């Protein structure tokens, strides 16, 4: 997948990049981060920098002795043969490869479910530490007004949406936290497809979505 034509304006935060590099993010967040980096060479470069920080920290550790037979044990392990170079993971479809690996295919393989108001979603299977879904929001339609109990990451894959903070186009990521209440609305002309992850249930401000919440798993 080539970089999007439009300039990416909204990037990953340093905290997300550090935690991705440290390997401490929930799986669902890892997926959104990896998908954004697939589209954004600026954040990719930052990822390399933060990996280098990890390397520097590890290199400065006070060594802890390995057990006596350790080197022999490693030589035993490597007898099992070499690994072939892995196939290059480059997407030619709509979705970057990390996302395709979770969907089990490209955009046409997504199993959409209606969630009301014309909005459709597809929940992707990850561990319980965060939930992650694809959202399809018809042009001009808004998702219900809501707040956040934790962190919500929303990455735009097609089209654009706006909320009171700004406009988010293809490749942009919005990082919403407890401070933010918003009502994202898809731009006219083209349906908006997003990848969204949350580590805590949203807080809907009106009754109907609140009643539906258990069914939507959001």
């Amino acid at each position, binding site marked *: *997948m*080539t*970089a999007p034509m439009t300039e990416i304006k909204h990037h990953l*935060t*340093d*905290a997300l990049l*550090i*935690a991705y*590099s*440290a*390997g*401490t*993010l929930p*799986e669902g*967040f*890892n997926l959104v981060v*990896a*998908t954004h*980096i*697939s589209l954004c*060479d*600026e954040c*990719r*470069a*930052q990822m*390399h*920098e933060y*990996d*280098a*920080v*990890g*390397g*520097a*920290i*590890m*290199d400065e*550790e*006070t*060594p*802890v002795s*390995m057990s006596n037979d*350790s*080197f022999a*044990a*490693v030589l035993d*392990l*490597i007898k099992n043969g070499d*690994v072939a*170079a892995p196939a*290059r*993971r*480059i997407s030619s479809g709509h979705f970057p*490869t*990390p996302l395709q*690996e*979770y969907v089990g295919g490209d955009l046409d393989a997504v199993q959409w479910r209606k969630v009301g108001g014309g909005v459709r979603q597809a929940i992707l299977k990850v*561990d319980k530490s965060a939930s992650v879904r694809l959202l399809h929001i018809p042009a001009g339609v808004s998702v219900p007004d809501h707040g956040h109990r*934790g*962190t919500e990451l929303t990455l735009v894959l097609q089209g654009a949406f706006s909320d009171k903070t700004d406009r988010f186009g293809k490749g942009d990521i919005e990082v919403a*936290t407890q401070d933010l209440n918003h009502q994202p609305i898809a731009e006219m002309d083209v349906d908006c497809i997003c990848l969204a992850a949350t580590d805590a249930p949203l807080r809907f401000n009106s009754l109907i979505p609140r009643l539906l919440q258990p069914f939507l798993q959001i």
Partner: protein
Amino acid sequence: TRKKPDRMAWVNHLASIRDQKDRSAFAEVFTHFAPRVKAFLMKSGASPDMAEEVAQDVMATLWRKAHLFDPSKASVSTWIFTIARNRRIDMLRKQRRPEPEDLTWGPEAEPDQADILALQQDSAKLTDALATLPDKQRDLIVRAYYGELTHSEIAEATGLPLGTIKSRIRLALNRLRHQMK
């Protein structure tokens, strides 16, 4: 004073492992890095036995995947860190960590010698920058990498000297931009 490991020497060791299956180069890499990987894993919450097992596994992976190491993208210590991190997630957290897709240019050309040198020098500077940070600031960063802070805690931490640890690897971005043309 402690003798600084020469990064280019490690890069050459990796090339000998890749091209000649050089056991003595591998033994030197093992002697330097395995005890540091073990220390890092123990600080990250692994038991000594688990840390030993993962460190062995990391070293075996280094041997098998030496042909995948790109010295214009990472120092040897950075590359080993990423292997150790991934093994830790597999073995201790039983979780998946999806990776970004590969860059579109290719087929993989032999990286430019000047790019390699500059990247290796940059990562040496980064290590120096970390070492000279005030204890309190350094401690915050290190705790993030030991997995003691969630991403929200990292975001809320005040006094995290991101300016100092960022932009030390200037080349990563320049090189990527250059290659995108």
